Every structure is written in structure tokens, then in C-alpha cells.
């Protein structure tokens, strides 16, 4: 389990990182915590020729109050998201979800930006930021742009981010007072979700997103639409998979995933409503 050889560049600024990635092109990759990338490299499922290490860009590790939202730097470690008082107050669903990622060692090393940029549909934080209506800030050679989480995920492990763009910040709307729940069904506590659900409700508004129910994290808009239309939780939960495209794998058949999604959406909405 040895990765293929690669060239290593340590970036000292976001701009330098972007410039380096531009220089080396398609086969270059950013390296942050490395917890998504290294296992793939060790299995030689990923063989980047150049890694641009952005791990030293400590100025991208922050959690700040930015008025109507909380700004989370992309290199903020899961553990720091989990324990942030600011997030616990204004976006507790995000803090809680970060504490559900993997195990302690993963949370000490993995970053929120790495998790989102990897765009794994089985990953927790993409779905939660999607449910929360977060906005991602991408920096490229020509400056920064913002993209809604809802527009970011395009396919399995692929996103709207260009190869020479770097995710620098996640803007999380403040959700003070919202009811929320993160439901994760897995065999063991630290496993990837077989199915997961992130949900919040506040004053008739709601957001629901699904983990591992398709090629991308899924925004369950039919559920929230049904709720807005006055449907009961049970009725709305029946709409859980309207946007999903669940796949079968060793852990669950399509039918079982579908069943779990409905159950977990119902449980999440009940918890978020209590």
C-alpha cells in the first residue's frame, strides 16, 4: 500500500497554491489534511503527479462571525468545527455533524474544505452544508467567486470547481433558534453513513439533505416543499427519495436505502420539530 511517486510543492499562500496547480495542470492536486486523498493514493486509485500542500496555509483555518453568516475557513479541522462555540450557537447542526465524521484521529486531521471539495456523496459535511444553504467561496487565478452548495455538486466525486480553483471558505447562514437533527445510520459508529440525513426547521422554513443517496449529496426539496405546503412530517418523509438516485452496494440494496431514507427523514424532522 505505497502511493505512486509524485512531486511535492508546499504552498505558502492561497495564490501560490493556485498558481502551482495551474502550472502543473490536470494531474496536480491540492493536499490539505489528506484524509480523503491518501487512502486512494495508497490503493493507487489516485496517482497525482504533483501534490500542492496547502496544509501550511493556517490563515485558511478560522471560524468567524460575519454578520448574517458564519465564515468557516476551508482548512478548519473537523475537530475545530465540532467544538466551535460560535457554530454551536449559530449553526449547531454543522458543529454536530463535524463531530460525527469518522473518529477522533480523522477529526483532528481532516478539514471541512477537503471534505467538501472531495464531493463524496457518502460524506457528512457536504450534505449538512447543503441542507443549511451554505455558500462556498472558490479562489482561482482570476479572483474569487461564490457558489451555492446547491449548485456545487455535479456528480460522483465531481463538482463545479475548476481544476485550478481552491475552496477557501464556507459561508454558513446563521440558524439561531432552528430545530435540527443529523441522523446517521451505519453499522459502526465511525463508519461512513449507509444513509444519513441532515435537517433543520425554523418558523415554517426547513432544509433537508441526504447522505449516500445518489452520486452527489441530495437536497430533498420535495420534502421541504411538502412541509411548506402543510404536509405532516410523515407525509413529507414519504417524499424523501424524490430527488435521490440511490445505488446498491454491499451495505444496502436500493430498496433498503430508500426505506432508511424515509425513516431517517421522518426521525430527523421529528427531532428538529421537538
Amino acid at each position: 500500500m505505497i502511493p505512486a511517486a509524485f512531486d511535492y510543492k508546499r504552498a505558502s499562500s492561497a495564490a501560490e497554491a493556485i498558481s502551482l496547480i495551474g502550472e502543473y495542470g490536470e494531474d496536480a492536486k491540492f493536499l490539505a489534511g489528506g484524509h480523503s486523498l491518501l487512502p486512494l493514493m495508497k490503493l493507487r486509485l489516485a496517482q497525482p503527479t504533483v501534490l500542492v500542500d496547502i496544509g501550511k496555509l493556517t490563515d485558511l483555518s478560522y471560524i468567524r462571525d460575519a454578520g448574517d453568516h458564519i465564515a468557516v475557513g476551508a482548512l478548519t479541522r473537523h475537530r475545530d468545527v465540532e467544538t466551535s462555540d460560535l457554530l454551536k450557537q449559530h449553526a449547531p447542526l454543522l458543529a454536530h455533524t463535524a463531530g460525527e465524521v469518522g473518529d477522533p484521529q480523522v477529526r483532528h486531521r481532516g478539514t471541512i474544505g477537503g471534505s467538501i471539495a472531495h464531493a463524496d456523496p457518502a460524506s457528512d459535511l457536504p450534505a449538512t452544508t447543503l441542507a443549511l444553504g451554505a455558500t462556498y467561496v472558490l479562489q482561482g487565478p482570476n479572483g474569487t467567486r461564490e457558489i451555492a452548495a446547491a449548485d456545487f455538486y455535479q456528480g460522483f466525486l465531481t463538482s463545479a470547481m475548476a481544476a485550478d480553483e481552491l475552496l477557501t471558505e464556507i459561508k454558513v447562514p446563521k440558524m439561531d433558534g432552528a430545530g435540527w437533527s443529523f441522523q446517521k445510520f451505519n453499522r459502526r459508529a465511525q463508519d461512513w453513513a449507509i444513509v444519513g440525513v441532515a435537517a433543520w426547521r425554523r418558523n415554517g422554513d426547513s432544509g433537508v439533505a441526504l447522505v449516500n443517496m445518489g452520486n452527489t449529496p441530495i437536497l430533498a426539496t420535495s420534502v421541504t416543499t411538502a412541509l411548506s405546503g402543510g404536509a405532516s412530517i410523515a407525509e413529507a418523509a414519504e417524499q424523501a427519495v424524490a430527488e435521490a438516485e440511490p445505488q446498491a452496494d454491499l451495505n444496502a440494496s436500493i430498496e433498503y436505502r430508500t426505506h432508511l431514507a424515509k425513516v431517517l427523514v421522518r426521525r430527523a424532522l421529528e427531532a428538529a420539530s421537538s
Partner: protein
Amino acid sequence: MADTTVGIPTVSVTVNGVLRRGTPEPRKTLADFLRDDCELTGTHLGCEHGVCGACTIFMDGEAVRSCLVFAVQAEGADITTIEGLSAPDGTLSVVQKAMNEAHGLQCGFCTPGFVVSITALLRDNPDPSDEEIRQGLSGNLCRCTGYQGIIKAVKIAAGQSVDANGKAH
């Protein structure tokens, strides 16, 4: 082979209080750097893909898996391995002593990773609940003990009194 425009990157890390410099190939993991270059073989490799936790070390104060970090990423880091947790004369740390008292190991292969994880857990949470102990250990696999002695060891190290079955009182 790996090279950069400015030459092979050097790495300077402090390991158990000693500054170590090297020029590891970029793909060399921190675990291999510690085991091969620093000759600290107490850090074990049970899976090499970031699950079993046998390679857990302290890196800048946090318990992390050294098999999922390239040595070059550790530039400037302060690292403590299992060898750094006991005294040179063999005197055990509180956690190491508790593992011995509680029969927290059998084959011992996973033990260094557990000792680091427990040490980190108790530093951040000196009086953990049962649930917190289990969560705190969830990144380390053991195949011999069924975790019974290990959980008991955490309680002993935390100063909780435990009965023969490992239940705290």
C-alpha cells in the same frame, strides 16, 4: 523519482523532544519516516490506510494517524510517539500503567496507538463517561481484548474506581 524545482524538500520535525532532519521521498509516510529514519518502531502499521489506528501519534498535540500523513507534511511539527510517553528508565505513564493493571493488551500490536489515543482523550476530558470513552477509542482497532481491559484501563487512568467487570462506580 520525485523531485521539485527547488530540490528535494527537507523536513525538520521534533520527535520526542529531539530535532530530526531528513530528506524523505515525498511519498514516504510519516509512519515510515518515524520507523525507518528515526528508528522508532513502536509506531505500528496495522492497515496503512487510515483505519486501525495502530500508528496513532501526537502531532502538534493532537492524536493523528501517521500512516495518513506524508513526512513532508510534518515540516516544523512537534511529534510525540509511544516511545516518548514513558521515562527512559522504563517508568510507565499513568495510561501505560493502567493498561498493564487492567489487562488492556494481549498481543500488544495495537497498544501503542491505544495508549496515545487514551492519553489524548484523558487530557481533553479527564473524567469521561462510558460513552465518551468508547467514542474516544473508536479510531483504534484491537482484535485480542474485545476492548474490555482497554476501557477498564481508561477508567483506572481517569481515577475512576472499577469493579472486576470494568464497571465504574
